[in-house]
């Protein structure tokens, strides 16, 4: 496969390990993500996908390893409006919260605007644009708690999009979204990726649907098992899946970790 070498990395993860207690939830993850790629991140329940995402976002502080975003070490990175995030638990908020769709989406801009400042006309236009982008314009003044789960999820996606991020990270964003909307949603992501050049990381269990849209795939189960192009993934998919969801994980890990290193240490053929 050809590598787009000139492009800078949006994300460089090196030897990353995180443990909540004694056991590592992720271990020794090495992953570099090119600008403009659309990465599908897959793995079984409890495989550490959300843990990896939270470590990238600085929500967790890993015990080992390092993360660089847009070339900057995580602890020096300040430009958070360049990153959009939709959490796996996004709709576990207090459903009685008295906020409208408009108010929730505007929260995506709050970190960027700064102290003592309020929304300008331009901000307001952006908020409405983001709401239209996810097809929720008819609900703009509706209370967030009174929407269906799938509609809420769309609002949270709009909240992530409103700051016009160049990296969008979505942790199982389509849970509770109906099948047709899922396809529309993936199409929308693909458009964002292709037309606006936004780099995407999508965590999902929906491997079949995902692989039609993404450009790259990473599989993790505590360790990184695979990282490569979508076509390459499809080619190895069966082997991959039984490795991830079936047999002993540890043995395979080292193989693939190795394989992975080769791919990125100059892209030498195996």
């Amino acid at each position: 496969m050809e590598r787009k070498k000139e492009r800078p990395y949006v994300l460089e993860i090196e030897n990353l390990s995180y443990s909540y207690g004694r056991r590592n939830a992720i271990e020794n993850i090495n992953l570099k993500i090119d600008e403009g790629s659309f990465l599908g991140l897959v793995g079984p329940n409890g495989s550490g996908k959300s843990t990896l995402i939270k470590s990238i976002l600085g929500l967790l502080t890993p015990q080992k390893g390092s993360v660089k975003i847009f070339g900057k070490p995580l602890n020096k990175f300040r430009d958070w409006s360049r990153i959009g995030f939709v959490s796996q638990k996004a709709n576990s908020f207090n459903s009685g919260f008295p906020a409208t769709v408009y108010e929730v989406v505007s929260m995506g801009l709050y970190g960027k605007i700064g102290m003592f400042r309020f929304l300008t006309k331009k901000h307001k236009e952006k908020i409405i644009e983001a709401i239209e982008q996810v097809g929720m314009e008819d609900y703009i003044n509706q209370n967030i708690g009174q929407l269906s789960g799938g509609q809420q999820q769309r609002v949270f996606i709009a909240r992530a999009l409103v700051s016009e991020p160049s990296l969008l990270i979505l942790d199982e964003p389509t849970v509770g979204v109906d099948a047709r909307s899922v396809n529309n949603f993936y199409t929308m992501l693909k458009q964002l990726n292709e037309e606006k050049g936004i780099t995407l990381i999508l965590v999902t269990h929906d491997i079949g649907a995902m692989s039609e849209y993404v450009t790259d795939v990473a599989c993790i189960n505590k360790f990184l098992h695979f990282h490569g192009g979508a076509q390459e993934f499809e080619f190895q998919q069966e082997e991959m899946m039984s490795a991830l969801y079936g047999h002993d994980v540890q043995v395979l890990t080292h193989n693939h970790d190795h394989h992975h290193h080769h791919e990125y240490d100059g892209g030498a053929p195996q």
Partner: protein
Amino acid sequence: MEILQQLTFLERGIIAGLIIGFICPLVGAFLLVRRITIISEALSHITLTGITAGVFLSQAVIWLNFVNPLYTGFLFSLAGSLLVEKLRQIYRHFQELAVPIILSSGIGLSAVLISLAQSSYNEWYSYLFGSIVTVTLNDLFFIMFTGLAALLILGAFYKELLSISFDQEFAETTGISVNRLNFFFAVLVALVISMSMKVVGILLVGAMVTLPVAASIQIAKSFKQVIILGIIFGETAMIAGIALSYYLNIATGGVIVVAGVVILIITNLVKRLTQAGTAAS
């Protein structure tokens, strides 16, 4: 300054009341959506400790006799507020524990200090249930100063506080520092509680923070409306309370709270009726 000095005791009380009626619901709205209105109870009792400490100090130590107990009340309220925040971190899965811990420590300490200080029952009565006619010029300065500080904090961090209250994890990913915000919020709550002390009273300050927003959330559709309606209800209760307490000579805090409860009942009825109306049509 000159103008303030010419105010009658009643005018002083009214100005103090209007400031409190404005700021309490504003902060109450955040306490409400963060589900921690109960913290106001803990802080009002620790503020009592501060006030008793202030009274005791001004009696026991000659050169401290100028100390206005409201200031020591604020210091204790602030310490209590930061302590509540700390306890909530320590007991992460039992966060409600922080309130009874601070509340009972506050009452216990107050009891000790009250028996040490020699004051008339009347003085404590006005701190417990609030009194509009005893607002001195010094008290009014305190209320204006703390009110201004509270407004400054809210102006600076309104958006950030709203975002954190709704979804802390997301707020963090937009670069908002949760620890810093929680600190300022603790200061804000301490300011509001200690500032309300003189007019509403220790036992009833929680009501001023809670009742107006409890009423407004019944009919509000957005967070902004919760705040705006909350302020309208707060001021209404305050004015009604001040007027009635003055003409009928009843404890101010008591009348304010009764007025707040009446507003709460009315909004609940209104909500019921409008819901029945939309369901029928």
